[in-house]
């Protein structure tokens, strides 16, 4: 049986205007899973709920350990990297790293020094002096130096330039080879095309898709139609008007061209909107 690094069951969080609705999924050990969805779909809520940064219902298991029963032990296995290290701006990197190291019995100082050299950190610098890219790398260095087995990345590449994003993706692939599991929330789907094995697609707090990236990319193709009736006859999904005619996703056919993750997301979202409108 495959080892599950992360197992989430019926994760539910109710806000006055938004509900993360009984969200269940699992990520196998050593895989990179991408959590996608438009802004406000519930990606950050999901990651924060997993970390219990927000109060929510449902169960979370990390490498078989129940979060609510072994909170400290489970968090030792996790490296949580938000959008960048935005904490303690007036403290030096060494002061922060020293404080963080105290929490982890398996903190590897050698490993931390190696990441500092690799990312060219000056430890006497203050956090506020780091660029956005460096802040993300600092978060990553902290997470990796305590030997995290599961990385939770929340929009970690949003503030990075294309080259830094490429470096970041390379780092994830290296970590994957070392057996680290990653759950990567982002709306920059091109990064996921590079690294992800599995796609979790959230829409308005509901899980719309959970499948291997390869299967997803094979299932949908993008086709352009001259008229709406033509798209209807072809059974196209999420048909919308474009510059020249109409575009929609088609399944079970070799026509059209391979759709990108962005296009799949847009057309599935469009289809959902259309179904909601017709239901009302």
């Amino acid at each position, binding site marked *: 049986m495959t080892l599950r690094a992360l197992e989430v069951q019926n994760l539910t969080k109710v806000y006055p205007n938004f509900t993360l609705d009984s969200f269940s999924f699992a990520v196998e050990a050593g895989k990179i899973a991408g959590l996608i969805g438009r802004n406000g779909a519930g990606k950050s809520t999901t990651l*924060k709920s997993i*970390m*219990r*940064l*927000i*109060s929510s219902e449902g169960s979370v298991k990390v490498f078989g350990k129940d979060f609510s029963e072994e*909170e*400290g*032990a*489970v*968090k*030792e296995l996790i490296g*949580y990297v938000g959008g960048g290290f*935005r*904490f*303690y*701006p*007036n*403290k030096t990197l060494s*002061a*922060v790293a*020293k*404080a*963080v190291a*105290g*929490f*982890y019995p398996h903190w590897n100082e050698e490993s931390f020094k190696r990441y500092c050299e690799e990312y060219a950190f000056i430890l006497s610098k203050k956090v506020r002096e780091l660029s956005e890219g460096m802040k993300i790398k600092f978060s990553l260095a902290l997470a990796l130096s305590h030997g995290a087995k599961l990385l939770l990345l929340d929009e970690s590449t949003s503030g990075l330039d294309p080259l830094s994003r490429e470096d970041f993706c390379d780092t994830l692939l290296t970590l994957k080879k070392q057996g680290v599991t990653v759950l990567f929330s982002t709306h920059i789907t091109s990064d996921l095309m590079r690294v992800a094995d599995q796609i979790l697609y959230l829409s308005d707090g509901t899980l719309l898709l959970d499948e291997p990236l390869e299967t997803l990319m094979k299932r949908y193709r993008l086709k352009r139609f001259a008229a709406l009736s033509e798209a209807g006859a072809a059974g196209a999904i999420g048909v919308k008007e474009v510059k020249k005619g109409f575009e929609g996703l088609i399944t079970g056919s070799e026509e059209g061209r391979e759709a990108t993750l962005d296009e799949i997301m847009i057309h599935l979202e469009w289809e959902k909107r259309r179904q909601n409108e017709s239901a009302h």
Partner: protein
Amino acid sequence: MKALIKKEFSLCLHPTAFVFLTFAALVFVPNYPYEVIFFFSGLSIFFISLSARENGDLAFTCSLPVKKRNVPLARIIVAATFQCALLFLTAICIVIKQASFPEALLVNQAGNSANLAFCGFGALVLGAFNLAFFPLHFLRPNTVGVPFIISSAAQFVLIGLLILIRHLPFAAPLATPDFADYGIKLAVLLGGLCLYFLMTSLAAYLSMKRFEKVDL
């Protein structure tokens, strides 16, 4: 818990926590409302909580391998450490004052005299601050000002009552220097310390319970 407390000292502490400890020396000022010494302790806790909020400390700490409910406990333990240090320093200053000042200057006309019983009152004022401030703050960690205003108001009402009691006939022994009416002053000191412990423990219990349900 050890790592959490170390982190509080290395990343969260505000310099005023140390500066306000020196205010214990205010007991050397003749005829002064010495109870305000304990208000400044609350002010340093306010600054610590404020800078922790601005530094995103709670969200960061909760992502570390700790139980979420232990995060407020560490903050309260650190605050209580400074409060106990303030009480201890105040007691030392009182001993020095009583050993070196003329007896006429030992009776305070502006509030309670600096003696053993006063330390008990101080513990009570500090405990009241803890009970009002921490459970309110950890219910909504983004609010620091409102819990501080409410807890300071509670402190000043209590200080007013303690100064009022000092002028009542039955409390006359509490205004004398320590070498007189030693027993009753010791009883007030022990009573104050017990109440401080109970109020701070209750503050920790409520804060931990409330913080677990907080969305960071």
